[in-house]
């Protein structure tokens, strides 16, 4: 009895994992089989959660299931490469297109593909801005307080997710604009960086809204500025620009892409469906809980936006002399 139960379970788990890997064979009309959202990051991160939120409301708009597949590891490059190498038939989508690996990393080291030539943008869903924060019991009530203090110190530390990524670049730019010397401490990822800040390991820190918002609500962190041109709808904090520092970056952009060669009709079909999802009340309320703003952009507009972000990061890296070697 027990043996048999276990066997059934084993077979079920096996079948599930196999089903996730080999979707049913193709038919004529698109879409006629499950669509895979390839998330090149591990399960539970902010990009993954966003993909899963979309997959949750997707049945209202798609006749076929959207399946989230994590292909993590390798600095999120192999997951992208997998999409680049797959058939351009609209059944394999890259989720998280526009993140640091697309806008920043190509400036830092060679990749096995060209993120702009081998992938075609479908749409933008969200943009994760960079929020600067300090512990709630910190002596710094405003950005000015922090700058005044930092200028008088030889050694100022900030916790960042990884070296030369969106958060690090924004903070380095801020330090340069404000005129103090910053030592950024790369932690192992955004959530670790925020943990280090809440534990008072560094002078300041921060991250994307989804990472800092729960701690701001809990009165553990105090946000001082956001590195966008306009305020982020997700966090109630003035921009750097409003406070006199020219720190505006693209942050980490969360969009969707398909392999080069995908028919335009499929891209338009997908873009339209995702646009509908971004206006779904259930999705809107979920995104509010997740601390991720909905900032939809169609294929062409998004392509232009990405190119601009890519060039801007290239200039910043040169200007700030950030090297990852």
């Amino acid at each position, binding site marked *: 009895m027990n043996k048999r139960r276990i066997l059934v379970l084993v077979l079920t788990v096996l079948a599930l994992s196999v089903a996730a890997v080999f979707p049913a064979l193709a038919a004529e009309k698109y879409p006629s089989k499950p669509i895979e959202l390839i998330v090149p990051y591990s399960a539970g991160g902010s990009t993954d959660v966003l993909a899963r939120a979309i997959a949750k409301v997707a049945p209202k708009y798609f006749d076929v299931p959207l399946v989230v597949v994590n292909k993590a590891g390798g600095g999120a490059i192999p997951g992208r490469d997998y999409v680049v190498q797959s058939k351009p038939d609209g059944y394999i989508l890259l989720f998280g297109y526009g993140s640091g690996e697309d806008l920043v990393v190509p400036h830092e080291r060679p990749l096995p593909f060209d993120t702009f030539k081998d992938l075609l943008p479908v749409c933008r869903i969200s943009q994760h801005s960079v929020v600067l924060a300090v512990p709630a019991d910190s002596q710094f009530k405003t950005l000015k307080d922090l700058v005044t203090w930092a200028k008088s110190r030889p050694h100022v530390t900030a916790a960042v997710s990884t070296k030369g990524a969106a958060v690090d670049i924004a903070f380095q730019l801020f330090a340069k604009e404000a005129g103090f010397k910053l030592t950024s401490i790369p932690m192992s990822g955004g959530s670790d960086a925020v943990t280090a800040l809440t534990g008072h390991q560094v002078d300041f820190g921060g991250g994307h809204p989804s990472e800092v918002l729960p701690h701001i609500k809990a009165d553990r962190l105090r946000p001082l500025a956001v590195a966008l041109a306009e305020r982020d709808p997700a966090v109630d904090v003035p921009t750097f620009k409003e406070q006199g520092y020219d720190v505006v970056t693209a942050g980490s952009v969360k969009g969707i892409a398909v392999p080069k060669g995908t028919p335009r009709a499929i891209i338009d079909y997908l873009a339209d469906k995702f646009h509908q999802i971004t206006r779904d009340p259930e999705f809107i309320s979920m995104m509010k*809980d997740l601390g991720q703003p909905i900032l939809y952009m169609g294929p062409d507009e998004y392509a232009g936006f990405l190119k601009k972000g890519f060039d801007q990061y290239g200039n910043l890296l040169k200007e700030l002399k950030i090297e990852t070697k």
Partner: protein
Amino acid sequence: MFDFHGLFTGFDIAFSLVNLLYAFIGALVGTAIGVLPGLGPAATIALLLPVSYKIGSPVTSIIMMAGVYYGAMYGGSTTSILLNIPGEAASVVTCMDGYQMAKKGRAGAALGIAAIGSFVAGTIGILGLTFIAPPLAEIAIRFGPPEYFALTVLGLLMATYLGGGSAIKGLIMVVVGLLMGMIGLDPISGAVRFTFGNVNLQGGIDFVTVAMGMFGVGEILYNLEKTEGVQLVTDKVKNLWPTLADFVRSRWAIVRGSVIGFLVGILPGGGAVLSSLLSYATEKKVSKHPEEFGQGAIEGVAGPESANNAAASSSFIPLLTLGIPSNASIAMIFAALLIQGVTPGPFLLKEHPDVFWGVIASMYIGNAMLLVLNLPLVGVWAQLLRVPYAYLAPIIALFTLIGVYSVNNSAFDIWLLIVTGILGYLARKLNFETGPLLLAFVLGPILERALRQSLLISAGSPAIFFARPISGAMMAAAVLFILGNLWASWKKSRESKVQPASVS
């Protein structure tokens, strides 16, 4: 004053028929994936996520997912003991003595003590979670890079006790482990190291792959040398239950394992793997008969298996009280809750007391269910040893391959598994122990990152390791540890010198 009302409400919720059912399903699925090598709780919880939307209630779905997570810790020991193949990353260390026990026909005792130790430790962990979670969580986030550095220094010192054979071979394995741990992006500068231009290696190698390869595939390859028809482990499976003497020997190992597991589990970035390794090293150090370790010492099973269960329970503390997920499985549960509109963290208790207390109460019940589920299975599993290896081996190999693939859905990991499997086979053949390699592989990267982060924070001054209370205390312990050993070996060498002198 402790909120007994909240806890009782929690039991009210957890005892509802639906929640009991899902706690049972979670525990059952968890045990199953724990038994299957490679297939881990994080991947399983991800697969169950769509099911959790169907369930609708956040309490019920988190009860199920939590069951999968701690259930996996129960099941993980099974294949470690029977086949020398870790079912779960956290059960790697259980192979060392568990398998030796099985070879001596004591598989039942090993499985039994693992289940009982898991139950005791799981319950101790939940008691801690119930009564002292918030203050502990506050201390845990004070645990910064210098504290991690000090902890890993202590851990590596303990690692010297892990091996039993040749010291030089052990050191070689430590160095290989450290080198393997360095593959990937430099944790501070982001430079690419030891990848030989392969992008798949940029993120480093996953512990699951190395553990499954070195132990699992290596073991299968090694057994292929034996001629067909030979019984795998042993055909005599005598007394299915641990004896009274076993309990007496294991009781303190279980308690120590529980405490180590509980403390390591709370740390952000800590976890079950580290806790089980530390527990094993501790048991060997305090044991009156350390020479039995590696030959089938029951404490070497009881301690680590207790530790990984206590860690599984206590890793819910930073999640529920601070909203900080401390490992991949907990991160998955975190994501599931977020999508259902429940934000884990300081407000959970105020906004969703039903979730907070419901989950905690369900863990008591789930643990009891697991004990009831696992003890009768001991007999069933022990029968597994009667299956001819010619049938068993390919099935295990297949599950290991699927399991490793499921971690990152990466075909490259399968190649890596095969390569580490060959390495494991060679190590086995040439009498190199795999334990030190795995410990170095786990601790090396933490040590490097923590050291460099600490020195960046302190602008290069090593005083940071001694000035802070927690890291200072641990560094002092490390120094005492070294001095104590020097003293012991000095005394020993003097005695051996004195004795011949008195003869002459």
